[in-house]
């Protein structure tokens, strides 16, 4: 099954009838993806003598042209992914050049200090990110040093995400709506993909709120778009953005930075007008195009049930989460679930199954990213419910919960952090950072570490020495396996 959402399944059937290939079909056609890279044995160094690859079964070459062995290759790939993750986090900070030292807020700073003792080296700095790039020019360090550096970059990434948060206005919690019900009825819908400038979206919202014969609405196609008083409503999760386009209910797409190239291709194929945010001259022109597209009858008869919309509050600050937990007299175990949709699983399967199962086991569940959108879409996070799932700000994710628990001295109630799917390297860097801080982390999709036992063992030993754990699987893990992981780490 491609997705657990019955409405999405209806749209999938419609796509198949119309001969439209979506991300699932592309994923199938790409199978198997590069086997050498999947196990970490494709050389990640910036070198033009290659690309060198090492046969995972030991029949072919066992060293790259420069002499790098399989352990070095796997460790370097881990470091490279962690480095990209740290750079992604650095790019979200308004003025990264002004930051020298990277730190975590109290009382997490103590955990970081302990972790750094275990990971060797001095305090964390932005300069360390740049210095790491030199490690990936030519092989010069041992695999162990590379793994240590990858873990340090993970902690730096956490610090950078915290830094980003302090540069934004602190707000308690913001309202968020999600579900296909947003596409019900007669209205002009503008879908937002990626991250257009906030001012542009605000201007569009203002312009579209003016009285007109047909209502105009803006919906996000899976990206978390923050406004002054809430988040833009979500028609779907990021994995299902293409599906929402084929519904025929999106009259125009506004494309911002970070959107997948497939969106523009699909818009062209479906004759959906597309506007790139950097080319926008007037917001009125966008609305005119959307109205024009709306006046053309849709090819599809898709009209979802308007009740398929759920609301939730997104917790933006640790103080807010902490006071919520205090109000609820929270003594339960907390499980954190987050991450992106991945075609390695049925979309929504892990977050939906696991949230239900963990709640039944008496856990309080908090989520971020696509996993959180699945919780909202299924009504798990709606207000007024007993033990409603908590939705965390996408950027801070587990860090936010960590800060709240640490402040109230209840870190022991955190039972584990599960990344249901990884898309950006930032997620991997965060997972490494959290495990490096001494927390129990599980990643539900395989990591490219299977090519080297030495690297896996060193990583496991190093994390264990600091009280941390990073569980990953040699297959896409199923919900039962992850549930067992949570239950076994009580």
């Amino acid at each position: 099954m491609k997705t657990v959402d019955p409405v999405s399944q209806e749209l999938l059937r419609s796509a198949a009838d119309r001969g439209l290939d979506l991300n699932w079909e592309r994923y199938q056609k790409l199978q198997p993806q590069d086997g050498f890279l999947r196990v970490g044995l494709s050389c990640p160094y910036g070198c033009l003598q290659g690309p060198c690859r090492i046969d995972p079964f030991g029949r072919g070459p066992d060293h790259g042209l420069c002499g790098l062995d399989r352990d070095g290759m796997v460790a370097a790939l881990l470091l490279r992914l962690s480095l990209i993750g740290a750079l992604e986090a650095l790019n979200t900070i308004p003025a990264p050049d002004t930051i020298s030292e990277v730190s975590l807020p109290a009382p997490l700073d103590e955990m970081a200090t302990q972790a750094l003792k275990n990971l060797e080296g001095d305090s964390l700095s932005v300069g360390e990110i740049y210095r790491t790039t030199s490690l990936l020019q030519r092989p010069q360090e041992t695999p162990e040093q590379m793994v240590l550096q990858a873990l340090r970059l993970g902690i730096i990434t956490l610090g950078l995400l915290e830094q980003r948060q302090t540069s934004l206005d602190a707000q308690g919690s913001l309202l968020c709506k999600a579900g296909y019900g947003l596409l019900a009825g007669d209205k002009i819908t503008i879908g937002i993909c990626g991250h257009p400038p906030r001012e542009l979206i605000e201007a569009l919202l203002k312009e579209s709120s003016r009285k007109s014969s047909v209502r105009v609405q803006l919906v996000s196609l899976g990206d978390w778009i923050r406004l002054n008083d809430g988040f833009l409503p979500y028609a779907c999760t990021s994995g299902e953005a293409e599906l929402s386009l084929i519904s025929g209910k999106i009259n125009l797409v506004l494309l911002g930075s970070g959107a997948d190239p497939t969106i523009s291709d699909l818009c062209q194929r479906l004759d959906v007008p597309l506007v790139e945010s950097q080319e926008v001259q007037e917001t009125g022109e966008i609305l005119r195009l959307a109205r024009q597209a709306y006046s053309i009858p849709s090819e599809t008869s898709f009209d979802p049930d308007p009740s398929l919309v759920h609301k939730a509050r997104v917790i933006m600050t640790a103080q807010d989460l902490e006071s919520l937990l205090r109000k609820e007299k929270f003594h339960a175990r907390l499980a954190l679930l987050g991450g992106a949709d991945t075609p390695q699983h049925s979309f929504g399967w892990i977050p939906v199954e696991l949230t239900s199962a963990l709640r039944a086991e008496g856990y309080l569940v908090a989520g971020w990213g696509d996993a959180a959108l699945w919780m909202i879409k299924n009504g798990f996070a709606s207000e007024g419910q007993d033990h409603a799932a908590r939705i965390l700000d996408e950027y801070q994710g587990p860090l936010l919960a960590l800060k709240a628990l640490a402040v109230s001295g209840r870190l022991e109630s955190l039972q584990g952090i599960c990344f249901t799917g990884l898309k950006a390297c930032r997620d991997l860097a965060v997972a490494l950072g959290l495990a490096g801080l001494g927390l129990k982390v599980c990643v539900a999709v395989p990591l490219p570490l299977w090519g080297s036992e030495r690297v896996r063992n060193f990583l496991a030993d190093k994390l264990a020495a600091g009280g941390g754990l990073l569980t990953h699987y040699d297959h896409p893990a199923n919900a039962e396996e992850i549930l067992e992981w949570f239950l076994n780490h009580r």
Partner: protein
Amino acid sequence: MKVIGVHLDRCTGCKTCELYCAVERGSSGKTLPKAVQETPVPKPRLRVERTNDACLTIQCRQCVEAPCLNACPSGALVRDPKNEIVVVREDRCIACWTCVMLCPFGVIFPWPERKFALKCDRCTYMEHPVCVEVCPTRALEVVDKDKIEEMYREKRRIEAKTDAGSSKEEGRMRCDLGS
């Protein structure tokens, strides 16, 4: 008889066929990350070889007059009457490697740890050969042996037509970027 044909112009030497042959036919885990941890190390039934100019997958040709078949002292090599594919009966193989020595194409491989010879049997008990399924450039294809000569003739005809009037040196190309 159907065999696996290789389009030489499509093979990039990525070795995906080798990897997944070892995973699907040589491992018990059946996934790559599981297979790389197994002992003995899984082995593929085909090889990707490379010269300076080209690379290609080599695997058993399922010879009509198969020397391996005639030489096997234990009767481990047999021709499947249904599809004429030469298969190794692993339970009968005594690991004498006579077939390995006699194969004119070098496409039977010893597996001393498991004590039997490995050769491509076109995944005869599966719906499709795994190498054909995974090849990212569709360089491998299941073809009827009788039609191969016909395919070659057609290919030679197209090549002759393309090359006529062209001074391009044997498939090599130069690309000048800028003026």
